């Protein structure tokens, strides 16, 4: 029974909750696997994670300390430096490799901060209704009334530049759509029989919200977060490009583009290559997100 076999996972009569849940995940995986574009996206993200994990092994040079400033500055791509070197004689390939850590960190932290806020606000508003709903959703609307990048810019301006503040600012501007989604999901289940049963048994509102409502909202919110990840990466890169995100000498991809911009015309690789990295990674998240949505939410497929 504990063997993770295909038959056990696809069993029509699961004998435990764990088996049912794992079976569900396995079925999702099977239908996702048939979508080759989503698999390409997944591949890109797996490569990104591996590169970030093994950056020390992969990168041939130090990302922060440059080589000889007299001979190794702004070298074009070659066998020694696959992506060339920048104005401080640093190997661009190594910087890109280490930069993947910053990108992953931004995405992960924003998701970890924004998702719970969105879930909390949305489920509370949907479950209690009335004035709680009005106040919470009005607040959400106000945040949605600013274009995201502009609001993030204003927050970073107030908090001061830096990657931590950029993460906070992006998280503050990311939660409203999740709150809306969680509220909509909550509205559809709050009057169902099993919620009423739990209430009649004397479960507290907190327990119902946390134990019964939130788990049911989780999957659609997670899809939405995956779909948003490309946007998060682009916003972080934009902040970095404007000099408000990661500060030099950190190898953040957006900041690298900003640095290479000054000698774009003579030394094109310095600004172009980090852009390719940003593009590839957000393409990966977009492809995977689209695939996940198609599998888990067939209604949205057109």
């Amino acid at each position: 029974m504990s063997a993770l076999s295909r038959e056990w996972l696809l069993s029509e009569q699961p004998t435990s909750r764990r088996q049912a849940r794992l079976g569900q995940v396995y079925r999702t995986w099977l239908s996702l696997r048939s979508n080759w574009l989503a698999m390409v996206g997944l591949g890109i993200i797996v490569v990104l994670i591996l590169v970030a994990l093994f950056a020390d092994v992969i990168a041939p040079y130090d990302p922060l300390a440059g080589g000889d400033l007299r001979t190794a500055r702004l070298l074009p791509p070659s066998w020694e430096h696959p992506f060339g070197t920048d104005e401080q004689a640093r190997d661009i390939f190594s910087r890109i490799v280490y930069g993947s850590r910053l990108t992953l960190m931004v995405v992960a932290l924003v998701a970890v901060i924004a998702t719970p806020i969105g879930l909390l606000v949305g489920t509370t508003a949907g479950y209690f209704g009335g004035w709680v709903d009005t106040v919470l959703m009005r607040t959400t609307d106000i945040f949605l009334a600013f274009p995201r990048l502009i609001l993030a810019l204003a927050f970073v301006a107030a908090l001061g530049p830096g990657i931590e503040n950029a993460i906070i600012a992006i998280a503050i501007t990311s939660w409203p759509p999740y709150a809306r989604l969680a509220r909509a999901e909550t509205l559809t289940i709050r009057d169902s029989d099993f919620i009423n049963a739990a209430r009649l048994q004397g479960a507290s509102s907190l327990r119902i919200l946390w134990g019964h409502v939130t788990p049911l909202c989780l999957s659609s919110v997670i899809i939405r977060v995956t779909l948003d990840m490309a946007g998060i990466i682009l916003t972080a890169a934009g902040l970095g490009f404007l000099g408000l995100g990661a500060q030099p000498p950190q190898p953040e991809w957006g900041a690298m583009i900003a640095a290479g911009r000054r000698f774009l015309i003579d030394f094109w690789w310095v600004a172009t290559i980090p852009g390719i990295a940003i593009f590839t990674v957000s393409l990966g998240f977009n492809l995977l997100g689209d695939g996940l949505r198609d599998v888990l939410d067939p209604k949205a497929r057109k």
Partner: protein
Amino acid sequence: MALADTSGEGRASALRSFSVKAAKLILSVAVTFFGLLLVTFLIGRVVPVDPVLAVVGDRASQSTYDKVFIELGLDKPLWEQFLIYLQKMLSGSFGESLLTKKPIAEDIARVFPATLELASVAIIIGTLIGIPAGVLAAVRQGGLADQVVRVLGLVGYSAPIFWLGLIGLLVFYASLGWVAGPGRIDIAYEYSVTRQTGLLLIDTAMQGQWAAFRNVFSHIILPASLLGYFSMAYISRMTRSFMLQELSQEYVVTARVKGVPEWRIIWLHALRNAAVPLITVVALSYANLLEGSVLTETVFAWPGLGQYLTNSLQNADMNAVLGCTLIIGAIFVGLNLFSDLLYSLLDPRVRRGR
């Protein structure tokens, strides 16, 4: 619109329900706007920079410091400060820019036409290409046009706009020399054009300065195409999905059975019905261009609102940052309201409360 709604009574009740809806919308916009003010006020309050030091400098004596502290109203309770802030903002005075030493409202009025011109050319490009592309994609689902729209959309959602801008400059300006470089107009023409509307394309055309017009055009075409590309990606995707919905309706089948030519069905019947929601989409992407313009203007040294905002950010000019944020937020809300109202005015189903 095609509904037989000729009786005066029906029209009056439709008008009434429209005005009720409009009143509700305007009320909710007022609440949102109040929220915008509150959020910008709070952002201004979390600034780690001491606002007094920003005014007097760090060598001022304690008595000067205290004087300014009281002048700025920082001794009053927070809610009273907010009321003062509210009063100032609503009277249209955003304070003075630390950088230009001018009132911020004046600065914004000066730079805004540049952004307006850029965004308008961009939205024209995006709409003129995006709608036909979306229609073609919907007509032949899975065909070539559909694939192209899909790929263009994916690239648009994945590529950093500032990076595409730099590549555009590298290819079309530096290598091919097809377009003019950063900036809005060459220095040679800078003072020969009298600014009437502030929109240089219109100004030069009205004054018959065609050499300057060509110069302005070759400056604007690259950044506007770039911004337009991002709206096109969105507009074509939405057009495709609206058209798919319309083409599966029964009136399309009826028209086909009656022998109406296919191009008439697609471009006149179906597209006309899809046009109403499309107006909302175009208005929304126009609002989104404001966001894209911040990064684009930085890349192209375009002297508009986006560049003003970035400059203020880099110089920690908090008043100017908040002023810009507020203005952009207000335009965003305004365009949303406008598209909502237009939608309910144009779509008889919405107008009659479904």
